[in-house]
């Protein structure tokens, strides 16, 4: 007996279904562009220079040499925005991956095994869920910032960007875990799983081969929406002084704007807002398309 | 006998983005007072869409693209439903055309009481006093044989069994004494014993209210039990229509034949069950020529090229086939 596993064909056709919409294709292109910019930042090869200051050039409005103007030290705002992409993407990516892994593993374990494992995991996420989200992030970020841990003899220092990613990741898995657990419980009782179990498959193999493929689409959707919320959360944490400090980030740039705007310096706010706006917009559109594409029930129903 | 409802050339398409899926491709039939027409066919053949088209309740992205649905009015000439403005059509629904749906479990609103739901069907059409409406509702509930209607009035749908809910649905459909009752698979979701009772109820009420009934079903047993005429649908067209007895005795279309053969009968255990080979093609790939030809045992060259014109093979027996059975 074969499992109604979502075959390669399914994914291909879902992918085609998603990309058939011009909106989704354009969104994906923009998202990939952002990722490319972030990746480019990591290679360091010919990246725009945000560090060179020029006090003579402080707060210059957009011009040909500085398309987004300059900041308080005469640094190029465009270059800062580009660097900010790298920060935003790495924060959001780390947090998303962390949340995804924790949520997926705990959700599958709870859903598949049930019993006391389920009780324990349910208790854990119910508890975390009952603390209002912003408070939870804040508490984690607050406690984690500038902390040194000794783990297996090595010292780890959690600072700025890592504290933010960690706080977001450690708190962001709850929703996904809950979702996955529910799905896993449903699938656990399906015939193909029962059959595979009757054939003597180990639980680990069952989870990975039979149940996981059936819940992956949930993870994909959560991932794309989570990504957006982490980018926005980074801005707020930066504003509260719990975020990234040593390097430009979009949150820091908006925080700077709080003072600058009153002297008429709008370009730094505009650049960071635009950067956040477009990634957020395209992720939303793409997330919607993915949901429509992966959920055949909805195909063609709307729009 | 004057038909109450006359349908001709009805076409309903579903447009998904740039593709067009023709669900109903030119359907003609008529309903007469006091008679039941059965509309049969495999699932996906367009029966339900046809029924909903009559009510003009085809869900998006479906659209009625052509045809006419004429409702006979006691005074004056027939009324063309398809060109009515929505506000006037609303007054037709429930008052002139009543409809019962397949899923009694979900077709009632879970958050309102039975009484409220039947009452609403009356009050949208007739300005009656509270008390009068209530009495009529209880009368209706009694008519559909719902036990203990006075107290059931205050029950919520989840407190009723499936059969009871379908009775309530019938009460709603009959609330304003419509001329036409459209029943879309009214018994499919019910137990066999309940099925029979509901069908009996529909027949009795038809006679009492002098309605015309369109009974949409995939179940030939139901057709045999409850209809006077049958129309067989395949891929959005009526391929054969005849009086029920005649059709069962002498089907002319190979598809009808296949359908009849697939019904197991007592004492005929050797008959092949899957009498129609192959599966229904999707609407996006309707075969050229006679749309049944890929599955037809009698198909010839002409079937691939030309779609057959309707022809009469007996009194009131119409079929669309190049090579009808004798």
């Amino acid at each position, binding site marked *: 007996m074969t499992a109604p596993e979502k075959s390669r064909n399914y994914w291909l056709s879902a992918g085609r279904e998603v990309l058939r919409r011009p909106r989704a294709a354009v969104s994906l292109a923009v998202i990939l562009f952002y990722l490319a910019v972030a990746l480019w930042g990591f290679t360091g090869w010919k990246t725009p220079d945000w560090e060179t200051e020029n006090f003579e050039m402080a707060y210059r409005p957009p011009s040909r040499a500085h398309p987004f103007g300059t900041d308080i030290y005469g640094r190029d705002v465009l270059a800062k925005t580009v660097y900010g992409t790298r920060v935003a993407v790495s924060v959001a990516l780390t947090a998303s991956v962390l949340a995804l892994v924790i949520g997926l593993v705990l959700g599958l374990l709870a859903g598949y095994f049930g019993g006391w494992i389920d009780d324990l995991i349910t208790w854990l996420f119910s508890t975390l869920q009952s*603390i209002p989200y*912003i408070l939870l992030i804040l508490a984690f970020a607050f406690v984690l910032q500038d902390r040194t841990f000794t783990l297996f003899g090595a010292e780890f220092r959690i600072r700025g960007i890592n504290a933010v990613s960690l706080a977001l990741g450690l708190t962001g898995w709850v929703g996904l875990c809950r979702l996955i657990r529910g799905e896993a419980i449903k699938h656990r009782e399906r015939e193909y799983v029962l059959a595979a179990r009757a054939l003597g498959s180990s639980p680990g193999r069952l989870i990975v081969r039979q149940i996981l493929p059936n819940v992956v689409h949930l993870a994909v959707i959560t991932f794309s929406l989570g990504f957006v919320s982490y980018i926005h959360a980074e801005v707020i944490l930066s*504003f509260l002084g719990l975020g990234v400090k040593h390097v430009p980030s979009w949150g820091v740039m908006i925080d700077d704007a709080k003072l600058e705007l009153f002297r008429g310096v709008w370009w730094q706010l505009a650049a960071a807002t635009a950067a956040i706006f477009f990634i957020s917009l395209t992720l939303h559109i793409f997330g919607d398309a993915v949901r429509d594409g992966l959920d055949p029930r909805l195909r063609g129903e709307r729009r | 006998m004057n038909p109450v409802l006359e349908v001709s050339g009805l076409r309903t398409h579903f447009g998904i983005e740039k593709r067009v899926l023709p669900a109903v491709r030119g359907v003609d039939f008529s309903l007469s007072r006091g008679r039941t027409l059965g509309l049969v066919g495999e699932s996906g053949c367009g029966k339900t869409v046809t029924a909903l088209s009559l009510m003009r309740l085809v*869900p*998006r992205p479906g659209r009625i693209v052509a045809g006419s649905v004429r409702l006979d009015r006691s005074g004056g000439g027939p009324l063309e439903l398809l060109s009515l403005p929505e506000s006037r059509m609303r007054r037709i629904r429930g008052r002139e055309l009543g409809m019962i749906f397949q899923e009694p479990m979900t077709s009632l609103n879970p*958050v309102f009481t039975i009484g409220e739901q039947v009452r609403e069907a009356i009050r*949208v059409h007739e300005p009656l006093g509270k008390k009068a409406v209530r009495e009529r509702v209880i009368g209706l509930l009694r008519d559909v044989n719902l036990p203990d209607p006075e107290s059931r009035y205050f029950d919520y749908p989840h407190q009723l069994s499936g059969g009871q809910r379908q009775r309530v649905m019938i009460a709603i459909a009959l609330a304003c004494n419509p001329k036409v009752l459209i029943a879309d698979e009214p018994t499919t979701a019910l137990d066999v014993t309940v099925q029979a009772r509901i069908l009996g109820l529909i027949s009795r009420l038809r006679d009492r209210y002098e309605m015309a009934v369109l009974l949409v079903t995939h179940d030939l047993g139901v057709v045999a039990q409850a209809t006077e005429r049958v129309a067989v649908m395949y891929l959005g067209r009526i391929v054969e229509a005849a009086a029920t007895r005649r059709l069962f005795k002498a089907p002319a279309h190979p598809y009808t034949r296949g359908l009849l053969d697939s019904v197991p009968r007592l004492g005929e255990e050797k008959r092949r069950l899957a009498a129609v080979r192959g599966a229904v093609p999707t609407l996006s790939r309707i075969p050229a020529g006679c749309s049944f030809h890929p599955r037809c045992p009698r198909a010839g060259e002409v079937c691939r090229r030309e779609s057959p014109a309707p022809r009469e093979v007996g009194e009131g027996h119409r079929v669309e086939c190049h090579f009808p059975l004798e």
Partner: protein
Amino acid sequence: MLSYFIRRILYLVPILIGIALITFLLFRVVGGDPVDRVAGRYATEEQKEELRVQLGFDRPLWPQPGRLLAGDLDGFARNQLFGHFASTFTFRFGRSEQYRRSISEMIRSGAGPSLSLTVPAFIIGLFLQITIAMLCAFRRNSRFDRTVVVLSVLGISVPYLALIIFGQAYLAGRWGLFPIYGYPERFGFSVVRYVALPVLLGVAAGLGAGVRFYRTVILDETRADYVRTARAKGVGEGGVMFGHVLKNALIPIITQVVVVIPFLFLGSLLLERFFSIPGLGFMLVDAVAGADWPVINALTFVGAVIYLGALLVTDLLYALVDPRVTLK
């Protein structure tokens, strides 16, 4: 009914313990010894030791099972975890490290301003969101619907902080349409003047996400079979939407609304901070900036308790709205 609630409350006990455990882990175990902070700059080691004893920080962090085995119940109970539980569950949060003010009193005085900001924002927001969503569902796929869908996605993508900064600088600052900041000393009608701009900004910020969410909820509901039944009865679109769909959609709406309730009490961090409204959100931001651990700890627990309370209320509301739900 009563027994139902008792059971529900009992079910909350492990979660409350969980929350206290998390605050303990965060603020005591990971956060480290608070005595250095509390004692002040010039305290000597002896004074700190004194304070440590006084505040119970000399005790072991965790209960010692060895003591229990030895029959020393008192010794078993003397640890920081149990101390933390005792003070948390009795809502004795102590005093703020920054202001030396009783935290319970701070929370009580902050709740009013927070609510005066969040409740109107919530009511207006909810009404607008659902009304617009209904209109969209009512005329789905129309130009109006498509415009709203596009606008709400655009709205979600604007960073909240940028919206507030812009609103304050231009609407209040440049154009002088609203007060720039502040809150009256005593509660009265003048509150309206001060919360107007923050409320409007809050509503604007939430509109996109809300409309999107409720539109989906309501559209899902309009696909239900009973809607077709209602239409077949001849009920008009208005009656279908407001009579049938809305009442059914209330269930997902309530679920969504309840999630928001704790935030009504906790106020809005950013709005209160920018507009100088002395609510709990302001207090939280201030506590973070001043590393006021006890305040953060207290707000975390209180926020969670309010959330759990709201969950109980949800159950009640479900029963009111949905006849299929009975509280047994």
